[in-house]
């Protein structure tokens, strides 16, 4: 229970600290707004066009693969704990070898299909 209290107080006190810092800056700093100060920085000229455009991020397939691998790693942590006990024997290691081989085969297939190169 104490640990949850610690984490909660980290978030609360940390947020308060950030607010104090930002508030102090707000109190101490001058405010003289001019038109030019609100412009976004674009190498000294007036911004051209809209920044919030739609474009292809180029790593779309990586993101999907990332989710698959990330979930796989959640399986690996309990497996690692079990592996540290010698009584679990060779069986769970063979099991994980098969699992990892399937994943690596999937990665190799993605590689062969060319999705791992950045378009």
């Amino acid at each position, binding site marked *: 229970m104490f640990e949850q209290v610690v*984490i909660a107080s980290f978030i609360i006190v940390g947020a308060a600290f*950030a607010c104090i810092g930002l508030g102090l*800056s707000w109190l101490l*700093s001058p405010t003289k707004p001019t038109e030019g100060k*609100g412009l976004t*920085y*674009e190498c000294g000229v007036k911004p051209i066009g809209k920044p919030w455009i739609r474009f292809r991020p180029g790593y779309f397939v990586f993101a999907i693969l990332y989710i698959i*691998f990330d979930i796989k*790693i959640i399986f690996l942590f309990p497996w690692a704990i079990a592996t540290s006990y010698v009584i679990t024997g060779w069986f769970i290691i063979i099991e994980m070898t098969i699992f990892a081989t399937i994943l690596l085969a999937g990665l190799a297939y993605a590689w062969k299909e060319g999705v791992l190169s950045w378009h």
Partner: protein
Amino acid sequence: MNAWLQAVLWVLMILVVMLANGSLIIYMLRKVLGAAHLRIGPQELGPAGIFQLIPDIIKLLTKEDRHPNNSDRWLYILAPIIIFLPVLVAFGFLPFGYRMVAADINMGIMMMIAFIALVPLGVFAAGWASHNKYSLIGAIRSIAATITYEIPLLLSVIPVVIMAGSLNLSEIVLAQANSIWFVIPALPSAIIFLICAQMETNQAPFDMTEAEGELVAGFSTEYSAMRFGFIFLAEFAGNFVLAGLAVTLFLGGWTLPGVDPATMGILAPVVFVIKTYAVIFLFMMVRGNFSRFRIDRLAQMGWKRMIPFTLVWTIVFAIGYRAFQLWQPSLGSLLTSVFGGGG
């Protein structure tokens, strides 16, 4: 009530450590990078420029803070806090000594990496909310970097978990005190972990999210004054947290070889901090000596090299470790028969 008071005291202590760490790292960064580039670094204020930090803080606090026009106002205000908070919480899981840890939870590593993984969310929010093209490119790149380093980072922790048999960081440290530092049997994992930590903290050669000279200042282009101060405080704290995690997992944490952990006492945090700064020094030397990767090369390196390698290495390590566990007694008797025994 008592628990809350104790918890708040922990937070205040960690905040002091965080601020001291920030001021130390910025001085160290200027001097080390200066030396790496054959410059002197700060030298005007105080001996060897050690008071340079004071005008820096005054400037951050008293600079006029303007929002860009059309920015997503609330996201713009919240982003520095979203970047700052997870790093602060991650500090709470680091064991500074025997029972000197704010939140000693069973899932220590998982929680710590989960909180650190929230930082790119804040970086993305900052880049998106700024309504600036360079910021948006930096934000998109931060996500690309995240999906590259996160998997090797988690995989490189697995051998440590196998050896320690626990996810609790304090128990990992004690397991190393009872055997050897895990960097020796799991050296490839330690190297992969350090590379991923370098990416995680947005440092050159992996600093595509800010990329001065390409993207002005990347996601933090439109940030100034204290908001920028918080982003940088979080960045330096992230340095300490990742280096401290590397020390805890691979370099024996706060223990020393040949010294009983129970007798370390007040020396433990000193040992921990010295080791952590040694790792930070390594980060800075890498930062000063390598040129920036291209973002697509980074993804290629992550997916075609680091992920297959760490996956295979983890399985190989598990097989080797089980073989060692099973044949250790016979190995030991073989060694005693060869070298004549003694004990």
